[in-house]
């Protein structure tokens, strides 16, 4: 009997080379992962306001935490996460389709070079972008999810999905580095942005990351491994 269990353990272990974090030994997804995910979701009441948004934010946080815990001493990036999600998805579906994922993920590099100039209420804005780490993403998610008074509207998802990619904001020649701002302040800043400006930033991000659109959707699809 233990032979078969160790066979499964062997089957579930794999060495992969991550795009930003080198080679790593990881577990393929197994029932243990699904059980943890199930237990994580069990604590969310279906009566919660905007429960779908809560599920999305909680799922992204869960996946980030799961990846971080694979190797706590490493700093995993957004690109590493998308690579792992693709790897796990293909494994679960036993897909032999040839993959261009490493090539496609190179589009994330463009974020560091981009500068988006915007005019908002007579103020000139220049937005600079970056690739977030999973720890940075989870700081934003923790802030959003721990605020029990907040009903987790679509705007919270928008805040997460845009502001995790921001490196700096130049407002009328003053540079504000996002790393120097607390998440609370960042959220207050987000609330000052008009919809048109947010739309422009979201459009720029979507165009830049177009090649990984499917993976970006997978990132928030809480039913994909359930």
């Amino acid at each position, binding site marked *: *009997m233990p*032979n*078969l*269990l160790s*066979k*499964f*353990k062997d*089957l*579930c272990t794999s060495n992969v080379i991550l795009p930003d974090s080198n080679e790593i030994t990881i577990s*393929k*997804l*197994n*029932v*243990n*992962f*699904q*059980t943890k995910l*199930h237990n994580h979701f*069990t604590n969310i009441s*279906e009566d919660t306001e905007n429960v779908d948004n809560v599920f999305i934010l909680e799922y992204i946080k869960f996946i980030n935490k799961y990846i971080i815990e694979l190797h706590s001493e490493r700093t995993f990036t957004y690109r590493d996460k998308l690579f792992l999600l693709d790897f796990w998805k293909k*494994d*679960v*579906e*036993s897909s032999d389709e040839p993959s261009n994922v490493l090539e496609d993920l190179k589009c994330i590099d463009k974020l560091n070079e981009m500068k988006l100039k915007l005019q908002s209420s007579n103020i000139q804005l220049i937005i600079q972008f970056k690739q977030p780490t999973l720890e940075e993403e989870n700081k934003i998610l923790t802030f959003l999810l721990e605020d029990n008074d907040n009903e987790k509207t679509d705007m919270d998802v928008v805040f997460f999905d845009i502001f995790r990619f921001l490196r700096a904001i130049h407002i009328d020649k003053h540079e504000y580095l996002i790393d120097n701002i607390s998440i609370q302040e960042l959220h207050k800043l987000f609330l000052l942005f008009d919809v048109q400006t947010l739309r422009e930033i979201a459009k720029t991000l979507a165009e830049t990351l177009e090649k990984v659109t499917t993976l970006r959707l997978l990132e928030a699809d809480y039913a994909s*491994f359930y």
Partner: protein
Amino acid sequence: MISYNDVLEVSKLYKHKQYDKVFSYITERLPSKNIIDFLKKCKAEKFIETNDCIKLDISKKELIIYKDDFLKNLPLDKEDIYHIDNYKITIGYPNIDSILPASCIKKLQYKDILLNINPTNYNDIPLSLVKKCMPYIQTYLDKLNDMYVYYVNDKYNSRFLYNKYIIINIIYLCFVQQHDSLIQQQLLLMKQYNFTYQDFNHISMNSVNAYVKIINLKLNKEDA
């Protein structure tokens, strides 16, 4: 057996909206091989005598559900062996304590090595294998979802869906009573008829109801 004290406890938990505890309390009291076995045990505990029924208030009317109308189309328990990749996989109805499809996998055989799957070892099964089992697992889930919690007629029925909330609702229908009335009844029997609290661990709800009926008859005669 679900005792009077069990009903008392589970009714208290339900009253305080501790639904997960209601679920775990009853599943611990009724150890079961799988969900079919569990539902059969719930039904057997609830419907002991011919006239036993569940009463529901629906649209200001009382709906009475008898044994034959409760858990209608409950499938017969069965397991089948399927050949998937190089494994012989035994699939059956899911366990009561796991809502995950993987709990439909009961045994795995690779060459001459057989592994009985249980909640302590099924965590290592790769999701890729579970995914390959899904078409077969789905046939069991479909049969479960073909069931009714109750079916009185075309107008008054409630379909079953394989999820924890529906199972908690079935537990509610079978075992939850008015908590305050249960305590009053228990106190009366302890005060007037020398029952101890422990006695109620060994007496069913039906037995207590029978005692109370006799007591009431006796009291009515005395009054007359």
